[in-house]
């Protein structure tokens, strides 16, 4: 019976190509879009990490008193490792820029310096060789594990790489294993090196053997022991955190927690991803409502057929089965096309997705996604098929057989509901898109406080093994001197950290002469290390005092510039000439305009600029003001670096526009997606309104004929048809406004400087949707105006 129903269904679709094409197109867009977004949400948020028993891996998180995430100090880490008996393995790690030499060209890769337990936590079988483990590898062994990508790129995929000696940041190191590409923690790591001690070495060159609690510089992960529960481990970690906060003054107000790694990795984007999934779900619902509307119209046109079937003995269940079979067949065909659409859409989405979207590499169309698409298809088939089937399977036999289903105004009720639902859902999406786009536009219009054009940045990180503090200073000064002799790079400066780059140095702001503040009131200042000329090159304004100059050398009195936002910390005094306690007292010589460092939406913080001769770090880079483009700068920087250290590759070279684009990549991505969905929803809703009104006009031709014959003017008929559509649209708009306002809290966390209930956005998009509804009614209304009463009445 089912086979027969399927055969009839296929045949009936072939015989109604217009309906079939519109329905398939709508479903393919709905199912395809949903599947593509689901595959991203699945890859990024839902899919378990690929490590063995990955739910037991915890990111160990240390929270500073202000709630910000902070790194671990060596002493706290050691205490935690000793006391965390619920964890079977704990590892500390920090990322490092690594120069891979000892082969032909020096290559700069992203490396991780980890303690020996790293691969006990990340339990993953290697592709080749072995990984290191706490039980067998003692700290200090010069061994490393490399990624599959680096193995292929740098070693041609040669299996004999195992046992090879290379120089990593100048240290001879043996490659003991290659791990598959899916092992990547944190993102983009190419090599994992065993730390020389039981904690990673400090990037600041500070001896970590002293068990310091002051310098926080590395991250930690742990694996919950097999016989213990994750909740127990988290409770124990909290208790350890409380004890450390209680026992050590430096830790006052801090806390420790263990967050499941998968959730921790995507914490920043989780809400955005779920909002996107909900948005595309709305599109799918609109598509369902649309096809449901089409099916109801079709059902109305098929009333004679259904009445005949009933007269021939078909029960209601039998008719329902046939109608539902038709909708599921339609949905399956739409789903198959949807998979195709999903595959294309996914390629497009991955291409436009921001690089820093976590776990993007895990996104793929696989059997899970196919299963989702299949499930979605069946549900969708049932969803859009059920209402029409329920309605159509109850024919009014006598009447239906007589008039062949020509009149049917009483049956437009359910279509009205569908259209109202479409309009409401479309408005919710439009408002979501309006809010996101407004927020994004406001974010992009934030003045970062520095020049955003004609500014090129080049990372010039130095391996600590070869560069002590004095060597670092010599290197950066030497490079800057050479750059300034080249006309292309004449306006250059050195800087750490680059804005929005993730680099960070902070210190508690203690003004000499003021009493120390309690921990919860302590102000933390962002530290910058800059060369003379930085302000001019980057467009940061000197408000008061003087800029650094060549006379502020390593041995001259320590000096600092402060930002405008820092001024208030001086208790009303003029900061110029005051001293800040940075270990040694540092004299404030100038005040500069505020700049943003972490992101455009992060609040302004106190900032202290120190001269690079007095506060040098091996992670500095050059900032070049030029109108000659990044390419010209690359050559000049390479030449300058090469003259000082031929073994040193230069790091990433980016324009400031690129940096800002990347920093706003995630909100741009989600705004782009929601705007696309909203546009699609708008079109689908317009098609829905058009379909209903067009159908109603066709049904009402005789009635319109009578009205015209009785003296109604075409204009009145036109107004009546537009009014009918508009009435539904208004109901939909009201429901949409209520729903959007109710859902506002869901998106408010994703918005910058934009209220989730902004009345201007709500009102303007409601008007847009109503205008669309009028437009969609226009063509059928014109058709109604042109009804010839004679013809209409004759057909009656």
């Amino acid at each position, binding site marked *: *019976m089912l086979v*027969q129903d399927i055969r*009839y269904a296929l*045949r*009936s679709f072939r*015989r109604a190509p217009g309906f079939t094409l519109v329905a398939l197109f709508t479903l393919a867009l709905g199912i395809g879009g949903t599947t593509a977004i689901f595959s991203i949400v699945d890859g990024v948020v839902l899919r378990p990490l690929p490590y063995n028993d990955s739910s037991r891996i915890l990111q160990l998180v240390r929270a500073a008193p202000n709630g910000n995430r902070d790194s671990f100090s060596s002493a706290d880490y050691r205490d935690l490792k000793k006391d965390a008996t619920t964890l079977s393995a704990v590892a500390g790690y920090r990322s490092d820029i690594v120069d891979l030499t000892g082969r032909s060209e020096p290559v700069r890769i992203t490396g991780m310096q980890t303690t020996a337990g790293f691969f006990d936590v990340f339990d993953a079988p290697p592709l080749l060789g072995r990984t290191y483990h706490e039980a067998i590898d003692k700290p200090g062994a010069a061994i490393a594990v490399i990624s599959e990508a680096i193995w292929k790129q740098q070693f041609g995929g040669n299996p004999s790489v195992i046992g090879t000696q290379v120089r990593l940041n100048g240290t001879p190191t043996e490659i003991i294993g290659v791990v598959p590409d899916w092992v990547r923690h944190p993102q983009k790591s190419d090599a994992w090196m065993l730390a020389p001690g039981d904690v990673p070495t400090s990037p600041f060159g500070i001896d970590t053997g002293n068990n310091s609690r002051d310098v926080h510089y590395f991250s930690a992960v742990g694996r919950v022991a097999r016989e213990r529960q994750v909740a127990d481990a988290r409770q124990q970690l909290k208790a350890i955190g409380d004890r450390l906060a209680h026992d050590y003054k430096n830790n006052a107000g801090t806390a420790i927690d263990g967050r499941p790694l998968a959730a921790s990795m995507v914490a920043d984007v989780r809400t955005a991803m779920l909002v996107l999934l909900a948005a595309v779900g709305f599109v799918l619902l609109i598509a369902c409502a649309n096809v449901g509307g089409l099916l109801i119209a079709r059902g109305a046109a098929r009333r*004679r*057929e259904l*009445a*005949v*079937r*009933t*007269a*021939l*003995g*078909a*029960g209601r269940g*039998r008719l329902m089965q046939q109608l539902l079979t038709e909708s599921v067949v339609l949905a399956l065909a739409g789903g198959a096309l949807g998979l195709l659409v999903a595959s294309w859409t996914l390629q497009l989405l991955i291409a436009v997705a921001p690089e820093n979207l976590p776990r993007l590499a895990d996104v793929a169309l696989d059997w899970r996604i196919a299963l989702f698409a299949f499930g979605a298809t069946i549900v969708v088939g049932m969803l859009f098929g059920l209402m029409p089937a329920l309605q159509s399977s109850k024919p009014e*036999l*006598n009447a239906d*057989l*007589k008039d*062949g289903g020509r009149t049917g105004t009483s049956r437009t009720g359910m279509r009205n509901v569908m259209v109202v639902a479409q309009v409401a859902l479309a408005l919710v999406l439009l408002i979501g898109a309006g809010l996101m786009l407004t927020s994004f536009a406001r974010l992009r219009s934030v003045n970062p406080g520095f020049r955003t054009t004609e500014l090129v940045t080049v990372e010039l990180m130095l391996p600590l093994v070869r560069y002590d503090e004095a060597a670092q200073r010599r290197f950066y000064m030497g490079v800057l001197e050479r750059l300034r002799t080249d006309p292309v790079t004449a306006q250059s400066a050195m800087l750490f950290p680059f804005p929005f780059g993730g680099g960070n140095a902070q210190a508690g702001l203690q003004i000499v002469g003021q009493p120390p503040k309690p921990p919860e009131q302590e102000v933390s200042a962002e530290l910058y290390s800059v060369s003379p000329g930085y302000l001019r090159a980057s467009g940061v304004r000197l408000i008061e005092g003087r800029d650094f100059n060549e006379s502020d050398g390593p041995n001259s009195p320590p000096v600092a510039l402060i930002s405008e936002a820092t001024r208030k910390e001086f208790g009303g005094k003029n900061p110029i000439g005051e001293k800040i306690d940075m270990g040694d007292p540092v004299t404030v010589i100038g005040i500069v305009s505020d700049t943003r460092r972490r992101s455009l939406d992060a609040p302004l913080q106190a900032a202290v600029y120190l001269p690079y001769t007095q506060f040098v770090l091996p992670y500095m880079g050059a900032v070049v003001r030029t109108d000659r483009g990044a390419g010209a700068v690359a050559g000049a920087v390479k030449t300058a670096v090469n003259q000082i250290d031929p073994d040193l590759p230069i790091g990433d070279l980016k324009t400031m526009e690129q940096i800002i684009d990347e920093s706003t990549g995630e909100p741009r991505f989600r705004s782009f997606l929601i705007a696309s969905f909203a546009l699609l929803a708008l079109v689908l809703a317009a098609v829905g309104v058009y379909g209903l009104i067009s159908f109603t006009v066709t049904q009402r031709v005789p009635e319109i004929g009578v009205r015209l014959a009785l003296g109604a003017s075409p204009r009145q008929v036109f107004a009546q048809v537009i009014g009918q559509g508009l009435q539904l649209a208004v109901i939909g708009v009201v429901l949409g406004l209520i729903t959007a306002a109710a859902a506002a809290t869901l998106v408010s966390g994703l918005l910058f400087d934009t209220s989730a209930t902004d009345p201007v956005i709500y009102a303007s998009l409601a008007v847009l949707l109503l205008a669309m509804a009028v437009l969609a009614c226009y063509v059928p209304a014109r058709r109604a105006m042109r009804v010839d009463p004679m013809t209409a009445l004759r057909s009656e």
Partner: protein
Amino acid sequence: MIRLQNIEKSYRHGLSQTFVLRRVNAEIKQGDFVSIMGPSGAGKSTLLHILGMHDSAWTGEFWLHDDPIHQLSAKDRMRLQKQHVGFVFQSYHLLDNLTVYENIDLPLSYRDVKKAEREGMVADILDRFNIVGKKDLFPNQLSGGQQQLVAIARAVVAKPSLILADEPTGNLHSDQGKEIMELFRRLNEAGTTIVQVTHSKENASYGKRVINLKDGWIVDEN
């Protein structure tokens, strides 16, 4: 076979009530060939649909064989309808998407007849009605007479004891109409009870009895 007692059907319009059928009493015996006649709006088709159990909103008593239809549930009525009744419509009402074969097969499929058995029954009907050569055609490839022939074939394929026909020749020209009426006569002679609604005295002459309706009342019965 059929006994109707005080059958009434009406529609409510606010406070007023419009009767379509009033106190209809009638008896139709097994093997009868009854024509229901009367002017438009007399209630002919309504009565036919009540007999066909398509309509359940009426009062009175309706006995089919010994089954009290007026007391049965919708499900039981459907069962009896499938068992006993075949329907022929003025506008044929063949399903456009189905071939001749599939149209005839349809009632059997709704009666859960096994596929092999259905094939035999449809083949037999196609042969009896001399339309084997048209079995793969769609309704729009047939003339009106041929379509009605197929519709009657479809009505009788499940071997009903009662055929209800609503103006079966209304859309046909006279030669085709005669052919169809001859077919009904042959079916009746073979034992099938036939009730038809018609405006045509000539068609009524093929039957054995006429029931005349006017404004919902039986005004004459012979």
